[in-house]
């Protein structure tokens, strides 16, 4: 869990100048009941405030929801605020908007509109996990950390690789602004000391034989220690050679195959293979 906290904090540091990219961490802001509340509604409102202050925001959400039909702006605002802090962002935005509709001359209209915009445009978050313990996760060929991992992503398609003691999973996922994506990298049994992974858009696939050795893309397989050079072949193209070393020992060799930044990946372009050693937790 320390890893997750570290990743989240690291993400925050990167965006130091911008507001905290995680809206649920913005402090609570509650409005008092202004007028028009019945005694019964007031009591429910106070119950919600007490639950919220006591660290039970979900309970507060339930209490406020029982009052929303009254249409009081303070209830709508406080409900939106509590929903934001429990990360129910679409509902939070809905009730911020209802607050503005209920109070067209709201003195804090601009601030509320800014909150809505910041929630809608928050950076994409990827939650990557799986089923077996002691796995590590790589995204776009870079080691993120032990599974589960939470990271701030960039919009667009990405490649996730999850490697466990007896498993390997390769999966494409897409990140969208204002969304949290759960990338569930389910268990797929696999053994071996080599993985040849590919970047998104690389249209290479399958297995091939070269100089008596069989290579597999996006699979985990075993090779004896040594240096390997091989053509990576697509269905129609023979691309350039890639090279990697398999050392002695228990470590796993992870090779990530991509083209130069900006190159069209649909056709065979000069491939770049980046090798790293993965030491799984023991």
């Amino acid at each position, binding site marked *: *869990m320390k*890893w*997750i*906290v570290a990743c989240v904090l690291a993400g925050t540091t990167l965006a130091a100048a911008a507001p905290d990219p995680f809206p649920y961490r913005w402090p609570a802001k509650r409005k*008092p*009941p202004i007028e028009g509340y019945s*005694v019964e509604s*007031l*009591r429910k*409102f*106070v*119950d919600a*405030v*007490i639950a919220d202050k*006591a*660290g*039970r*925001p*979900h309970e507060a959400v339930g209490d406020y929801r029982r009052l929303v039909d009254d249409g009081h702006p303070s209830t709508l605002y406080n409900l939106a605020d509590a929903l934001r802090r*429990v*990360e129910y962002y679409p509902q939070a935005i809905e009730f911020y908007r209802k607050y503005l509709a209920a109070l067209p001359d709201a003195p804090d209209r601009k601030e509320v509109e800014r909150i809505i915009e910041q929630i809608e445009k928050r950076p994409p978050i990827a*939650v990557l*996990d*799986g*089923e*077996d*313990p*002691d796995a590590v996760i790589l995204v776009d060929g870079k080691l993120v950390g*032990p*599974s*589960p991992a*939470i990271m701030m992503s960039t919009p667009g398609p990405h490649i996730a690789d999850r490697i466990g003691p007896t498993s390997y999973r390769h999966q494409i996922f897409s990140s969208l602004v204002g969304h*949290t994506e*759960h990338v*569930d990298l389910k*268990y797929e049994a696999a053994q071996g000391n080599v993985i040849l992974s590919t970047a998104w858009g690389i249209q290479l696939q399958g297995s091939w034989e070269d100089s008596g050795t069989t290579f597999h893309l996006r699979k985990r397989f075993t090779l004896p220690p040594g240096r390997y050079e091989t053509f990576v072949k697509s269905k129609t193209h023979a691309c350039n050679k890639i090279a990697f070393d398999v050392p002695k020992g228990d470590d796993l060799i992870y090779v990530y195959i991509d083209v130069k930044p900006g190159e069209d990946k649909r056709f065979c372009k000069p491939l770049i293979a980046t090798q790293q050693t993965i030491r799984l937790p023991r």
Partner: protein
Amino acid sequence: MKRAFILLMMLAGAATAKPEAAKRKAAPDKFVKAAGEAFGAAFTADQGGDLVTALALYEKAFAISPHPSTAYNTGDVQRRLGKLTDAIRSFELYLALSPDAADRKAVEALIDQLATTPGSLFVMSGPPSNLRSIDLKTAYVLLDGKIAVKPGTPTTTAVDGGPNLGVELEVLPGRYVLEVVTPLTYGMSTCVVGPGERRVCLIGAPPRLDGAVVISSDDRNLLVVADRAEKRHADSRVYKRFEHPPGRSRLLIRDHDYECPPLALDVPKNGDVAYAFVRVVEPGSRPRCRTLDITKHRLRFDP
């Protein structure tokens, strides 16, 4: 009490107009008038020390016509009657009704003080003849994963003179997972203690439960399993004592649909018990495994 005079004047609709320009206010409406009368009677009862009557009259006044001062005085009486949870609610009501109150900070500090007033839990089991009674003298008693009582601690009689023996624990207000682990068995219960309250918490267990591992949590949605194929809540090892191969081991934790970091355990083989309490730091459901705080103990028992 300080608000009494001002409020009575307001509720009675007292005019403060200057003599040269008579601008009399209309008579108070029937609700304000009735509330003022109830408030005055409450005030008198309060001064006379009749707090129960004062409370009822303040509540009546508030129900007829809500006013911040009535809420405040209600809370003040409830505080003196020892009804701290009700007092907190009344003081919050006061703050809600008068968001610009000059004494807001003082009232907020008072609420904090009341909310953290310790209460007590009297932990007891049934009489020895009861099938599910636990011998507390041989037991570890744990509250939210912390060892509150070790084996050998003497038991006492409840303050209210009940027949059963138990142990008295001073605790902060809150909801607690209470567990008892003995050489023979394991029992679990949840107990809620309000500010300043004294609660009796009864705990029982089957006469015999084998196993060298006990896993617990403050969140029932958490799933702790030994194998990834175990996915149902019925498979979860939370609130259970169970057998597990001795040595280092890793159990899987799942929070709703999300994987959590595994729970590492060192399982003993000499009659001791490996105990772990998984506390969920963030409230409610989240789109990920929530932050967990894990407390572990080796509960040692004489062979």
